[in-house]
């Protein structure tokens, strides 16, 4: 037994309606839109221009800096426009619009990379344009660079999939288990410091757990930790704690405690790239939610308009109110159904209008549910109270004292609040206040 208590205790409904459904392949769309950013890191730089012809898997944008990723064309056709695109995070980046020629001709650039050692392995990952598919979209190669420095003894494969509805990782562990195993073997071959590879899977995925256990039976140093099916098991710091017992200190990275965390679908994608040379141009995602009549797992080209994916699934139930990139706990709502599927899109949640309307919040009754629910041990009510402090300096000081920077916006506090207080929203606001204050102080110096 592990000598610690599992963190994360919020009973969020599972709604894994699609767990038994292998992904259906959706025909390629007529047009794709590829935003150059929107996740962590610098926006990529386009290397094509309007009028250029491109093929499937061809590089269309290269990393602009260290924490940045390559982008490849998911279809063959013509670049029609390079246009500004407003990301859900509020930043405007460039986006490449490509019109399909209907041929899906594969680029000659798509050749398996030569991987012989750690350096060439990481370089291959960099070329593949892999980013963390769990949500934040951190470039995988940058994460793996920590292996070069040494000191990494554990790789945690994040397969918790704790958000409601989403089963795309579950299907990866069942349908693409060979790729998952190849991914594990890549680490075993090229990362000699890694002595332990741990899969963290929530207990509600019996089939996936069995699949991984069976495939890994003959691989030494690989184990499965069955996590409680309580949100948020998949949060990086939580899964590190719950699989290894290690605590990532404030302001540090998992690598500082000898751990790298990789999403299981990212792992499979890397293995596929090393085998075929085909970069990340296709995404398997779960399409579900109150407004979806036929929930499904579907494999689509990156850049496909979300409206088309919803239409592919057929009828919707009731009026669509909200459409999310991701699940309902941390998902980001889209403004328009024309927005594209992104590399990080592991699910599209379509909510009815009734589900989408939030009731008015009432006074905090100090019940403490948010404090009990917070997996990071924070006091959400204290942040909201601190926000009301008049003096900016005092406000920032109080917010930092209560460790606002440790909030990962998992949503547990808002989820359990009986007064429907917008706690996560307040925390985001508070983080903004702190960031702004520090930027201001830096400018002054």
């Amino acid at each position, binding site marked *: 037994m592990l000598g610690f208590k599992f963190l994360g205790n919020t009973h969020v409904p599972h709604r894994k309606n699609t767990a038994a459904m292998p992904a259906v392949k959706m025909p390629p769309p007529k047009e794709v839109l590829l935003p150059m950013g929107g996740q962590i890191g610098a926006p990529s730089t386009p290397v094509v221009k309007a009028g250029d012809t491109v093929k499937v898997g061809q590089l269309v944008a290269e990393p602009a800096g260290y924490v940045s990723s390559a982008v490849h064309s998911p279809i063959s056709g013509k670049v029609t426009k390079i246009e500004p695109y407003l990301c859900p995070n509020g930043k405007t980046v460039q986006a490449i619009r490509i019109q399909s020629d209907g041929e899906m001709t594969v680029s000659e650039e798509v050749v398996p990379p030569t991987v012989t050692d750690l350096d060439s392995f990481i370089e291959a990952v960099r070329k593949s344009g892999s980013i963390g598919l769990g949500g934040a979209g951190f470039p995988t190669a940058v994460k793996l660079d920590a292996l070069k420095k040494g000191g990494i003894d554990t790789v945690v494969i994040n397969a918790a999939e704790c958000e409601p509805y989403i089963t795309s990782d579950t299907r990866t562990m069942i349908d693409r288990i060979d790729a998952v195993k190849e991914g594990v073997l890549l680490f075993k071959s090229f990362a000699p410091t890694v002595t332990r590879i741990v899969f963290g899977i929530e207990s509600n995925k019996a089939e996936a757990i069995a699949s991984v256990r069976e495939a890994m039976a003959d691989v030494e140093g690989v184990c499965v930790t069955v996590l409680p099916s309580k949100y948020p098991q998949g949060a990086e710091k939580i899964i590190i*704690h719950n699989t290894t017992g290690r605590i990532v200190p404030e302001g540090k990275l998992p690598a500082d405690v000898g751990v790298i965390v990789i999403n299981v679908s990212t792992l499979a994608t890397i293995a596929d790239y090393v085998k075929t040379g085909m970069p990340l141009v296709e995404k398997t995602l779960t399409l579900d939610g109150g407004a979806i009549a036929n929930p499904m797992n579907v494999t689509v080209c990156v850049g496909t308009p979300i409206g088309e994916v919803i239409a592919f699934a057929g009828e919707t139930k009731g009026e669509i109110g909200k459409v999310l990139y991701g699940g*309902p706990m941390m998902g980001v709502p889209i403004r328009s159904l024309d927005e594209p599927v992104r590399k990080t899109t592991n699910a599209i949640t379509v909510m009815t209008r009734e589900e989408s309307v939030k009731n008015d919040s*009432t*006074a905090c009754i100090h019940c403490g549910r948010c404090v009990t629910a917070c997996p990071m041990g924070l006091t959400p009510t204290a942040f909201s109270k601190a926000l009301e402090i008049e003096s900016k300096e005092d406000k920032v000081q109080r917010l930092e004292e209560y460790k606002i920077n440790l909030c990962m916006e998992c949503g547990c506090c808002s989820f359990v609040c009986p007064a429907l207080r917008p706690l996560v929203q307040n925390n985001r606001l508070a983080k903004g206040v702190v960031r702004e204050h520090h930027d201001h102080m830096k400018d002054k110096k």
Partner: protein
Amino acid sequence: MANNLIVSTSPHLHSGASTRKIMLDVLIALSPAAVMAVVLFGLKALLLIAISVCSAVLSEFVFNLITKKRQTIGDLSAAVTGLLLALTLPASTKWWQVMVGAVFAIVVVKCLFGGIGCNFANPAITARIFMLISFGTTVAGGTKTAFSELTAGATPLAAIKAGADATALPSLTDMLVGNRGGAIGETCAIALLVGFAYLLIKKVITWHTPVVFVGATFLLSLLFGGFDLTASVYHVLGGGLLIGAIFMATDYVTSPVTSWGKVVFAFGCALFTVIIRYFGSLPEGVSYAILLMNIISPYIEKLCAPKPLGAVSKKGGKA
């Protein structure tokens, strides 16, 4: 396809918990005690409960109306306050006295401080103390139940304080069933414990405050009472300890949120209760003890704040 999508911050899902549901659970948990109050003390008890609840709800309604605030009686917290107040009064309380008490609880203790969630002291307890001071002869002490063979309605604790020997006290069975002198809702230990179990099952409260409060009162009574086991048992069952520990010390607004905070808070309540009972001039101390602890609750909460995962203690001192 419609394109007028709603955009809002995550999370997009809610547990369905609401203040109203919580308060309804508290009312349900109090109902066994309320029923027993009527059984033991007759229609007088029913009248007290009805007047108290109506006055509480009505005064909040009128206050919101006059001050042009959003109506809050729907959250049922005023009803809880009214019921709780009635249950802590003896049957001898006059109808107008309970009315004054309920209005005081809602208007002075709760609404004037900003309404639900903003009061620093428990409205029912503060109103009860206000009534004890104002209407001492009818509100202090207790009345005998309809089934009591004892002539006096004195509470067991008052009897102990007056130096009565064990033979003059109600039997243990009577104490559990509630056949003893006291406030209408505090005497039936079994009804209160049923309510406690309900609150635990519905996760409205945690075990910390009631268990520590009652447990510590028992142990401290043993200690201060020269290890007199019988007296300690009567200290647990004989006054307002159970209703106070289960329903009043657990009031969200006026007690700490963390488990350790609750333990400290409850221990403080127990300590003050026993000090008042043993060294003060009063037979009862639960209300005063809880009120005292209400006042220092914010400090306890600060001391017992949870430690964030991976937090580094001082700024600049990163490990």
